[in-house]
């Protein structure tokens, strides 16, 4: 456990949702840029450049936040032994729960990429 030391743990609690917010802004920004610069017209195999970039960005965001969730969950698990944890379990639980919730939110938020029209 390296990151889970005080008071950085407060930042870790906020990190998952901060990454979610970053993913939302990035997806919205890339979509806007793609529509302006005509990325929908550039085909990359079965996908156009616009949708390919959005898919990549979305999945990458989900992956990064999921990794954070996995890491914070492992901190929580390692604090279940007999030794007193380096931080109150409550804060470790909160960090893990916020990260997991943020990963789920990022996944759900990006689902429209699979279907909705991009620039209409």
């Amino acid at each position, binding site marked *: 456990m390296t990151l889970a030391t005080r008071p950085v743990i407060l930042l870790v609690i906020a990190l998952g949702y901060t990454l979610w917010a970053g993913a939302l802004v990035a997806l919205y920004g890339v979509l806007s840029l793609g529509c302006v610069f005509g990325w929908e017209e550039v085909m990359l195999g079965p996908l156009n450049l616009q949708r390919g970039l959005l898919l990549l960005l979305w999945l990458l965001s989900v992956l990064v936040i999921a990794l954070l969730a996995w890491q914070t969950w492992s901190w929580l698990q390692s604090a279940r032994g007999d030794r007193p944890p380096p931080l109150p379990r409550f804060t470790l639980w909160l960090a893990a729960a*916020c990260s997991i919730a943020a990963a789920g939110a990022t996944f759900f938020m990006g689902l429209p990429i699979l279907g909705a029209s991009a620039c209409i």
Partner: protein
Amino acid sequence: MNEPVRSASPVELHHELTRIWGANPGLGQLAAVNHTALGRRFIVTAFLFFAIGGILAMLVRAQIATSHSAFVGPEIYNQVFTMHGTVMMFLFAIPMFEGFAIYLLPKMLGTRDLAFPRSGAYGYWCYLFGGSILLLALAMGAAPDAGWFMYTPLSSKPFSPGINADVWLIGITFVEISAISAAIEVLVSILLIRAPGMSLDRMPIFAWYMLVVAVMILVGFPPLILGSILLEAERAFGWALFDPTRGGDSLLWQHLFWIFGHPEVYIIFLPAAGMVSTIIPVMAGRELLGYRWVVLAAISVGFLSFGLWVHHMFAVGIPHLALGFFSAASMLVAIPTGVQIFAWLGTLMSGRPRFNVPMLFLCGFFFIFVLGGLTGVMVAVVPFDLQVHDTYFVVAHFHYVLVGGFVFPIMAAAYYWLPHLTGRQPMFQLGHAVFWLVFIGFNLTFFLMHLTGLLGMPRRIWTYAESYGWDWLNLLSSIGGFVMTIGFALFVLDILLQARFGPKTGRNPWGAASLEWATPIPPTDYGFASIPTVTSHRQLADDPDLPRKLAAGDGLLGFARRNWLETIAVDMITGEPRQIVLLPGRTFLPLLTALATGLFFVSLLLQVYPLAIAGLVITIAMFWLWTRHPARTADLGRLPVGDGTTLPVHTESGQAPSWWAVVFLLLADAALFGSLLFGLVFLWVVAPGWPPPEVLSDSTAFALIAMACLVAAAGLGRLALRAARRGAVGWALVWNRFLAAAHVATVLLLAAILTTAPDPTAHAYAGVTVAILVYVLVHAAVGLILALHVWQACRRGHVSAARSLDLMIGRLWHDYTAVAGVIGLGTILGVAAMIGQPGAGG
């Protein structure tokens, strides 16, 4: 150092602490800075604004009760509905929960005051004066009249040529100083100023909610402040920012407004939810079910609410996929909201609820807020939203959310904490009548509005034809509105009767477990005669004799030492005691500073700019006077706190509350700066009329040197701090002089660039570019002021190896200025280079 001598008796201790913490009588009350006095003032003033907003609502309902009404004309009607929304959102809801937070938090956290009493007082006066500007304009018939969200181009100069829109932009910005200062104060206080032993998992649930809300204010309000500054610059100086004929875009205003505006709904709801989470366990006679899940839900709502802003803009022509992102986020926020609702219901179901007046209002909250939430999910669905957009359905929805989610919990809170505020019990059972009048009146008014909206009645129209068939619905809504008003009038009567004639209450009349009921009732100026050590989540339930022990001085700091106003700061995670915080006492400085700030804002409104500059200079001079402090002239070392423990005073500690305050101020600053950069990119990509006819040129060298100066200033700030920590104050002074010189150079260089910058009235590109330059220049100028302050502190012997707080705060500012300056100037140079290329543009 020896333990200080304790007072001979609890009564003597009370008198000594009252002398130190209390305000003088008469006009001396204006110098009060303690949280109890300020909290009461916020609550009473906010309620007065609520009454004014309510009267305005009655005027609206009177006008549209029937078709072809001639009660008021369209000009007055526009002012009335604009001011109703503005007053309720900015002058009632936010200050009301701030008032409750300021009054309750120190007591709940088991401490004597908030971290920055003068800042709280300054915020109150800014709120009062800013709100008064708006009311004065209303009385003079020059109130804002473009809707509470001031959409451009309606609020732009060609379509709103009078002073009305300026009153909104300047008055509300003035009021927002209060929100920002309260947010910083609340945030630092919750994190640091708690009773020893109160770790994060032992914090009262209301504190968790307010922690989330404070962060939301710091991130959510700056975009609106920026938007207001830019729109006022367009209106007053003709800058091109929202004008599509000059490279601007009205949608930029909508983005900036709703990045603030949607979180604002949750900024209002979450404190109320915190009160609900506090009251329900007491009424149910058991602990809150799922404490940590409720904390998780509050944090989740806080974040997710920032992803919803575009759902207010579904009808402006945004691509379907983008609508999908925001629609998904709008649905997601229902999940943590539902978690809270089920936690409250579960608490009630597993307890033995008492059905008294606070509980009645909580039941009303459940019914109304859940209905508002359901219609919220409906309008989050894009096709449905397009059908009901800008109709009375939306008016009904947000009143169900805001009145259900804020007013009903606040009424419950008022009845719950009134014995604490007044020390008296209710006389009659008027509260029941109040509830039923307000509940029935509210539903009659607003439930029918769903139908009025589905029948197609648009918002904000001042009259309508009989043939539309809206008459009976509107008439019933208006009758409901007046029934509700009678209920609120009865509420005022009930409160006054209780406060004046109610029988005295004993301590902890509800049998609560939280620490605010461990103070004397009504509370004293110092709150706790001594500070408790917290060992559980339900300290008062575990130790019912705690109030007597604390009053007898058996806790920490149970003495009056050197006329100091002392409290304790703790480790923000574990709650271990870390510092003694010495707070400032009664002073007129906040009032005088707010008056000077008011001079600045009123002069801006009247466009008397020399006077505005004078107001600004006086405000800065006043703030300079705030820096006097009793613990600045000598090292005090570790001082005893009462149980054998010794702690350093905050001026000799690593990360004092004021250091954290600057950290959070810079968070808000960064949100404003980010919004400015977003504005540039948005206009470049989306707005018509790009590329601009002229870009910044011949300024690259000056900009690069300015960036180097900013980085050098940051480095010099670090060297000065390092020298001070070694005790080499002379060297600190030397590095500080170079630092000041670097900031002077930056100011001069940026001023030189501004003289050659493109005309901001010609194109939005120039407007945003100049705004970024001014932003960096102002930060360098503030850095210079901080350097001058450090110089004075060193010269007067206020800096030593132990006392380097001024330099630490300065380092934070210089570091931020360097980063923001490099990003800002780099962006300007990059955009100019790219736009300068043939074929670039939006």
